[in-house]
């Protein structure tokens, strides 16, 4: 049997070699530098950008909206309504970064006058950057920003065309972005925002939300404080209230303070909603790591020695057991790239070479193989002994 018997040809190799030489010899000498695919990718993800504060205005008696434009005057990146920006502030010679949901709409970042906004409430004493933004930041100041990041956005192939947004306090910001984008006709789904605030006179972004006139956007305020004149929904956002405003097969988006998440999880359980219909935004670093199961309380007050390797360089800095490694780096003026600060995005992926540590169980977005090789996401990792780590050179 000889199916390929016709192949008496032994010159194939020489023939194809000649073909290749000819093809190259006949090719153009004009260097093509342009990579169209990379240009499109860059329009969405240019990386860190230098931004300037254009204006600051009150978003409620306790919160401010800050508008940023690109320092070079260009257009900001494309992003999805609901995504966040990671902002780096230089304060007292140190770089500190924080993620904030973008409260402006994607269409507002397009064309002439392109801008993006964040809305930040003054803290009750635990938010050093929140207070810096509210008290110190002023028009003309410069910051570095990386946007749009995160997974908290409506995905047409996955999510229902009816969305119920459950917002608490500044958790309204991603939904403000979605609402404005829908009202502008850029997104096509029905959005009902159930928005929990304490009192009627301190509802974040109230004026802006009131101005949205669109059949597809509905806003239901729920007040937890006792305001006798309030006519609307009262108390917390309970299963009953959620049910009242749900459609058949709604998708639920939840954004708010950490305490709200635990409450919401319980309420949503009562409604028997399939897992794929519920999406929580990440909520940042744990407020109090010592409160988590498994955290060795006896270590909470200790400060350890943290050896930080970058390339062939080495620094030794202090690290408190109750603060994340990222906080230790930032306090010591060691630059590290972060984005979500919730253990999810992996920007601050760090190799632990030695030492004991605790990873916040709610914020553990590590890959399985990374766990095996002692990689941590520094924003959700807390030292329990002296440690040596390796981080990228920034």
């Amino acid at each position: 049997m000889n199916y390929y018997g016709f192949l008496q040809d032994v010159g194939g190799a020489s023939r194809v070699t000649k073909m290749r030489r000819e093809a190259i010899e006949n090719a153009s000498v004009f260097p093509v530098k342009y990579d169209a695919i990379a240009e499109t990718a860059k329009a969405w993800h240019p990386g860190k950008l230098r931004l300037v504060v254009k204006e600051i205005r009150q978003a409620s008696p306790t919160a401010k909206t800050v508008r940023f434009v690109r320092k070079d005057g260009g257009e900001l990146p494309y992003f999805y309504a609901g995504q966040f920006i990671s902002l780096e502030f230089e304060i007292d010679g140190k770089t500190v970064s924080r993620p904030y949901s973008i409260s402006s709409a994607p269409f507002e970042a397009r064309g002439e006058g392109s801008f993006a906004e964040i809305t930040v409430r003054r803290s009750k004493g635990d938010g050093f950057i929140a207070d810096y933004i509210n008290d110190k930041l002023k028009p003309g100041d410069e910051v570095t920003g990386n946007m749009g990041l995160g997974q908290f956005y409506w995905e047409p192939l996955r999510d229902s065309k009816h969305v119920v947004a459950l917002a608490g306090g500044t958790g309204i910001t991603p939904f403000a972005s979605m609402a404005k984008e829908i009202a502008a006709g850029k997104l096509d789904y029905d959005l009902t925002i159930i928005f929990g605030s304490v009192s009627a006179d301190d509802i974040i972004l109230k004026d802006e939300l009131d101005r949205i006139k669109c059949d597809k956007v509905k806003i239901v305020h729920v007040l937890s404080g006792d305001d006798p004149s309030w006519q609307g929904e009262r108390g917390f956002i309970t299963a009953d209230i959620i049910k009242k405003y749900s459609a058949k097969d709604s998708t639920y988006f939840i954004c708010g303070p950490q305490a709200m998440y635990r409450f919401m999880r319980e309420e949503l359980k009562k409604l028997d909603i399939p897992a794929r219909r519920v999406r929580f935004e990440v909520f940042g670093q744990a407020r109090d790591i010592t409160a988590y199961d498994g955290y060795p309380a006896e270590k909470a007050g200790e400060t350890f020695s943290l050896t930080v390797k970058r390339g062939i360089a080495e620094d030794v800095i202090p690290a408190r057991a109750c603060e994340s490694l990222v906080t230790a780096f930032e306090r010591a003026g060691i630059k590290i790239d972060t984005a979500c600060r919730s253990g999810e995005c992996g920007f601050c992926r760090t190799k632990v070479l030695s030492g004991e540590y605790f990873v916040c169980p709610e914020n553990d977005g590590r890959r399985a193989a990374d766990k095996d090789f002692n990689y941590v996401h520094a924003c959700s990792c807390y030292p329990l002994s002296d440690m040596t780590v390796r981080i990228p050179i920034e």
Partner: protein
Amino acid sequence: MKYYKDHYDVIVIGGALAGLSSALMLADKGLDVLVLERHNLPGGVATSFVRGGIEIEATLHEMMSIGEKGNRLKVGKFFDDMGVDIDWMKVPECYHASLPGLEVTLHPGLRKFAGEIDAVVPGTFSKVLSLLQLCDRVYNSVNELSIHPMSKPMMLLKHNDFVRTAGYTTKEILDTFDLPQKALDLLAPYWIYVGSGFSDLPFTIYAVLMADYVGYGSYIPRKFSHEMSLKLAERAEEMGVQIEYKQHVEKILVKDGKVYGVRTARGDEIHSDYVISAAYPNKVYTSMIEPLSEVPEKAIKMVNGRRLGLSAFSVIMILDRTAEELGIKDYSIFRGKTMDTDACYEELKGLGPYNYATCICHNLANPDATPAGTCSFSITTLPRADGWKAVGPDRIYEVKHKVAKALIDDMSEYLGVDLLDHILEIVIETPMTISHYTGMWNGCIYGYAHTMEDHIIARLQTEEEDRFIEGLEFAGAHQISGDGMGPAVTNGRKAAKLVLDDIAKKRKGASAK
């Protein structure tokens, strides 16, 4: 602060499979190696990501050239030899072919595979088996000749089939077997792993593809391709390689025709005797060499005279049902509305609809790939960048969703269940996604296409003619062995070998003086 040594023997640009394989081999020979990777983890597209607490494979379908323990093939053996211990899991079948009038699952083993084709296209066993055996002989020759080059008369004597099939396309050789169309269709699905239609694909490449996958089956790492990338990186570091993440190399520094280092986006200028680049020659010769006057015209011709291979479009889903509940029975489903590979290739120039797709359900090779009650399911097509180049930033959202939906709808129809009702997580990867994370030229993951004009044998014969700057080597899909994660390792080893040969040559020259 000083982060780098004053000098390295070799700087490797890109810490993916090719670059890390180079680094490992060089470190094994005692060289001082620095790897600069632009992302914050190793692997390039050989990686995974976590969404909603679930780890998801980014790209790997299946690894070729691994082989079972005790009888490893070349990539598996290289990992073993280098002390890179990967938890390989065997993929149970070659593929389920869902083609016009055919629903067949084919398994590895030349005789088994031929027997399973014979069961649906009776009377083809001996012909199919002899084709596969021909593939196997060519494959063995390629493997042997890549290690021990020999004279033409010797080649003719010992590698007759290899020599005699060298000048022909896959179609030309397949035609001589006079097989019925259905049998030919069942022998075609793997084409997408090499990415050229059969009337332009060198038979040599087809032979390697079929002999390796059908003869020995394929494997995946238990903890996704990130396990493989990370273990390579960890082992390299253990052997003294310095790996720096988030370092984007912008320039390769050249003087008097010889490389002397690189400069990163951060501004670090780092010196070395050799540079191995995973960045495409297209990018290196048009914008990375400094000064550009060091780039000879011939180098520009070399990149312009070759056709870029494929990019990728993938819809990756975590579904809220098990594979069994959704009626997914096979790890890989290759689904084509036609199995005319030339027609399929033409389609890849556009933006869809794409009528040929490959689907992977990891749980069917690795039951614990996702949490209980869920499964992963990806649908991939591998378009050329051409069509996607015209999709600017304004339209990418709309276009990618349209293409993704068409692929999901088709698979929903096939499975008889609307996958859109079961999506826990979904990620759509486009050529832009690849470009964003890896910087690969035009989002192209297949390097230069395997064609008759750019035949692997011709690449080997003209290897020296493709080298333009002393001390500069390349490692990646754009090198001789072409696309795929297995070949990436081989390409990386080849670059390391060129460096080692050059060092040996220089030492010999020096001692002769």
